[in-house]
């Protein structure tokens, strides 16, 4: 092999060495807690970060390792670490470099869990966040403070679907020596490789499109390997000696994967948000068909956008692929294959009509997840964003009539037929 492999090949092969003992073609499920060392020298080498290897499945596991390396390969990152959930990935990423007194600049349009983490939880530990509208690129620059250590956003905002101008945001980060971490769950590396536009780390809820079947919760944090931690003294967790490993200097020793190594050495060891081997195996099966599924998600999405835009029970439709969307140009730039399979729309008749719609569709499942192979719908104001106060709700771009749709892989004619039932029920409510 003398050239870089392409996406579909990597999604099938990257990170897996065919089991050398038996030749098993599928990655074995290493459902084990611990590993027997051949000798003490090997044991001490692994513990002292002198060689790769496995000691205890909280830190690393061979099956999880295959998934990690596959995700790193697909993202073009220097290293990936899988976690028990997407939120755990975000938490590990933040705590690897921030501490009491530090500050984050983040987008207002994010998954409710991300907002809650930064608005409610991190302040308890002295980390504060300034939230900026994702369409206000210059607002990110203005929000940077002396103690700002991280810029954070979702490439495709949730639920307004505004697209970050990633290149411009990355430039702001680079100008201030601040890394840019992007939640890339909605785009996946198939639609956009964020490191190509200057992002420094990505986080994923691999529960969603990456896994694709709604069978396992999981997260990943990917180190882009492209941030110069040594350029300032702002990041002592990366550039100063780390006592638990005999004063290791991660930046000197691991360079491009210093950030990921910090998470491995600290978060996975001390917090322990590990992914289970069985979940890693299930998620690997999903990733093998990532591009095939994404293409179908996108074609169904385009079909439904056409259907919804022309439906007289629909008051508005929101998706970056629509020319009317404020982020349409950015979507064409960063997401040329398509801007994801999340659509939001308003049902004429407001809150009650929206509720009637959701209660009368049968094929689409009413639940709080996205990125399943099955079509999902939800009413954000009463579910995913229910713990956020009214002002933040408006800032997050959520209206009471909003239905969020995660377009699945069903035959699109069946999805439309199902929606017709919902719209008829919504119409009856409106007439009363």
């Amino acid at each position, binding site marked *: 092999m003398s050239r870089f492999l392409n996406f579909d090949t990597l999604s099938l092969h990257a990170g897996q060495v065919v089991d050398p003992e038996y030749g098993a073609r599928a990655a074995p499920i290493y459902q084990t*807690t611990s*590993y027997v060392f051949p000798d003490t020298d090997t044991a001490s080498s692994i513990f002292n970060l002198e060689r790769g290897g496995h000691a205890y499945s909280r830190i690393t596991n061979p099956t999880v390792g295959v998934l990690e390396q596959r995700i790193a390969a697909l993202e073009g990152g220097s290293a990936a670490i899988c976690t028990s959930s997407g939120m755990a990935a975000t938490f590990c990423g933040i705590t690897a470099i921030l501490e009491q007194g530090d500050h984050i600049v983040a987008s207002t349009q994010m998954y409710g869990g991300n907002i809650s983490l930064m608005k409610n939880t991190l302040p308890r530990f002295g980390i504060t966040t300034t939230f900026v509208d994702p369409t206000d690129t210059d607002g990110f620059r203005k929000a940077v403070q002396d103690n700002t250590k991280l810029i954070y956003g979702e490439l495709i905002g949730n639920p307004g679907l505004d697209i970050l101008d990633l290149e411009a945001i990355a430039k702001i980060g680079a100008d201030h020596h601040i890394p840019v971490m992007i939640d890339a769950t909605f785009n996946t590396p198939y639609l956009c490789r964020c490191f190509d536009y200057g992002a420094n780390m990505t986080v994923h809820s691999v529960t969603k499109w990456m896994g694709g079947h709604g069978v396992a919760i999981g997260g990943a944090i990917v180190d882009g390997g492209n941030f110069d931690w040594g350029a300032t003294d702002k990041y002592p967790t990366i550039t100063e000696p780390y006592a638990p490993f005999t004063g290791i200097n991660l930046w000197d020793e691991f360079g491009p994967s210093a950030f990921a190594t910090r998470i491995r050495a600290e978060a996975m060891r001390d917090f322990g948000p590990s992914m289970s081997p069985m979940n890693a195996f299930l998620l690997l099966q999903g990733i093998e068909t990532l591009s095939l599924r994404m293409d179908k998600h996108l074609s169904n999405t385009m079909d439904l956008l056409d259907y919804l835009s022309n439906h007289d029970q629909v008051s508005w439709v929101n998706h970056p692929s629509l020319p009317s969307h404020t982020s349409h140009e950015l979507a064409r730039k960063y997401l040329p294959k398509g801007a994801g399979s999340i659509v939001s729309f308003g049902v004429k008749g407001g809150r009650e009509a929206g509720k009637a719609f959701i209660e009368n569709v049968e094929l689409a499942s009413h639940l709080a997840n996205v990125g399943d192979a099955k079509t999902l719908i939800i009413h954000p104001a009463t579910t995913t964003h229910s713990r956020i106060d009214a002002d933040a709700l408006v800032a997050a771009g959520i209206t009471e009539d909003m239905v969020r749709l995660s377009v699945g892989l069903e035959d699109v004619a069946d999805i439309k037929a199902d929606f017709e039932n919902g719209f008829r029920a919504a119409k009856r409510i409106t007439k009363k």
Partner: protein
Amino acid sequence: MGFRTRQIHAGVTPDPITGAILTPIFQSTTYVQPSVDEYLSKGFTYSRSGNPTVKALELKLADLEGGVDCACFGTGMSAVLAVMLAFLEAGKHAIVSDVAYGGTYRLSTKILSRFGIDYTFADTSNPDAVAASVRENTALILTETPANPTMKCTDIAAISEIARKIRAVHAVDNTFLTPYYQLPFELGADVSIHSTTKYMDGHNATVGGAVISKSDEHAEAVRFIQNSTGTIMSPQVAWLTLQGCKTLSVRMDAQSASAMAIAEFLEAHPKVEQVMYPGLESFPQHELATRQASGYGAMLWFEVKGGLTAGKNLMDNIELWSLAENLGSVESLITHPVTMTHADVEKAERDRVGIIDGLVRASVGLEDTDDLINALAAALEQV
């Protein structure tokens, strides 16, 4: 090494690649061969023919049973089927315990009989009855001891002697006592059958079966059927069963001790007509049960005074005990064989072998003995 050591370590070595202390779950259909010339050099080609995780369980069970080889199956019934297909053919005859599990009875009378195999259902607890059933073409004697659900015991050595004389295979279903309490090969049997679903797994997590052979010749015959019919165990099931086996003896001892206490409680209870548990002195074959096994197991049955109606009443009202099929798990289960496990056996046949309408089968689990007895006492109160 002793049983407790072997139930943990037999068949399992640390993964040579990573050192993983547990055998990985090789959820893989196929195996990449190093080269054409080295085909099969790593031992595996296709997971129907062999799988490293399943292999670990097979090695363990062969070791525990004292056999040369073990083949694992998708279910206990597949294991029974494999034994019948391995040692019988059109024109052959088998003698099967007349209190065999309902599924075995169904397999014999409704399916394999269509392929020209003859069966005699004999009271294997009586060696004379077995000897009287022997024909010129008898090739297999299949016994089950203690039998399900009557708890009737078969003298393994006596039947093995009959089988030896007529050059038939004696297969013993050893599910109820497991090799921890009973070693059929030491008593002369040729093949041992298990539903691993029961005590081997022990946690109601999997369905599986195993056939262990004492000789290479028998092992090859079983392996050939396993590969040809494809009735294999999945790697996930094998892995879970491997974990269950590690506590087999501890569970057996604790559950059997509870069973003894429960049998004594029931025997003394005024509303109970009769109790059958091999550990009770009153058990008709108590001497045989004590002689050929080192424990009595955790299965028993009893009849409530008032017969079927009273028994149903008890099962409908009892708490803690689950009304469910299966046996051998850590959860205590209670079953009504006439309507559940043995519904396929005709009434006349049931009555003949002693599966009376009021028979309530109890699989004693690992809960606190007092809690199990209290639950029975409360339910009997309402009868």
